[in-house]
């Protein structure tokens, strides 16, 4: 059955808890239940991926990869004891981190001097303002400014910030998701806030000097 946007999700689905919807989808292959689940959580999942990658096209690919995995692995790897969305976020997080690590490897391999373009690795690095122009247009100014700063944080700190703020995930769950102790997760959050404060201050100073 192909669902379109016009498919109406019954009201009782909206009142159901995630686990009930998951059960309906798993046992009865109820696609409306899955649609409702996606409606509830897609923005948070997408926001997390986008804030980590800061590129629409790649974020789209990872988002698609995440939900394809979710739907194909739901019967095998998801046990209904845990929160469904925490399981989805784990898949999204792993896919995102995999991509970031692949990118890093790519950068390492090509970090030497390029004869053809007569540039070295540092010249080929993307601009500091890493969010593309068309992405900037779609987001409001404060969000894109915040995302830019968050994008400049080290990957580990960025992960904790995004999971806490976009997903409102408790630090205990963040620690489990990222395979670190709760103290490490809290420490990363602390350093992230300290770094963000510096960035906000610098930005403020720039704005003042421009005036």
């Amino acid at each position, binding site marked *: 059955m192909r*669902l379109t946007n016009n498919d109406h999700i019954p009201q009782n689905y909206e009142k159901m808890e995630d686990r009930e919807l998951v059960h309906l989808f798993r046992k009865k292959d109820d696609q409306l239940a899955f649609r409702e689940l996606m409606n509830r959580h897609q923005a*948070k999942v*997408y*926001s997390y991926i*986008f804030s980590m990658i800061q590129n629409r096209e790649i974020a789209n690919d990872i988002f698609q990869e995440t939900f*394809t995995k979710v739907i194909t692995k739901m019967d095998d790897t998801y046990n209904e004891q845990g929160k469904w969305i925490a399981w989805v976020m784990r898949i999204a997080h792993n896919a995102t981190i995999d991509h970031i690590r692949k990118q890093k490897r790519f950068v390492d391999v090509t970090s030497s001097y390029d004869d053809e373009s007569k540039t070295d690795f540092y010249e080929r690095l993307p601009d500091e303002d890493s969010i593309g122009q068309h992405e900037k247009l779609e987001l409001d100014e404060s969000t894109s400014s915040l*995302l830019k700063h968050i994008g400049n944080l080290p990957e580990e700190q960025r992960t904790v910030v995004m999971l*806490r703020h976009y997903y409102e995930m408790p630090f205990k769950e963040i620690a489990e998701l990222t395979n670190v102790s709760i*103290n490490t997760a809290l420490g990363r959050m602390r350093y992230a*806030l300290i770094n963000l404060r510096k960035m906000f201050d610098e930005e403020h100073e720039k704005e003042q000097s421009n005036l």
Partner: protein
Amino acid sequence: MSKKENQSITYIYDEMDPSEKLEFERDLENDNNLLIEVETFRKISERLFELKAVQPPEELYEAVLNKAFMMRQKQKPYQSGRYMFAAAALVIIGLTSGLFLMNSNEAGTENETGSAMLGTPEIVVNSPVAVPGLMDYATTVSSGAPLHTETSRIEPWVDENDVINFYDRFRTTNNASLDSMFHHSFQKLTPVTDPSQSISIQRHLHLTGGRR
């Protein structure tokens, strides 16, 4: 990073135990530096809460749903096939183990009979011809020869002459011998002459089975 340093984070994100929170607030009153740190973190975190969720493009949402459902449909035959294989495997395992158990039971019976024979290489046969129906229960015996029971299982027993018997004690006793035993048992009883002594006599009366 010490636990103490992380307390300002757990405090602003409201993940502290009530008792821990109370203690931390007491510390905040006495430590200005800690208070400044907490307020700074709170301001930054409030700014972060302004982050709006980024919606995926509409066409992506549809594409994801359709692709995912198509993949699930593809998975279906595989899954049903998998269940079929599992059921078939279960039936085969059940049948095999059933056959195995049956065979092992048969082998066990044979072994038991065989082991009975091993301990008694020389067996004296007592098969009184006069006893009707005895051949049904008796056993053909010769040294080392296999023992075959025709109908039911017979427990061997040794009589007063140390002869091993392979037939049922009860069945071998024909009606005539039973009658004679019964008759003789009554002969052992003596008539009561003095009824006043009957109680004491009864107390000492023991009914026992007669010898065959």
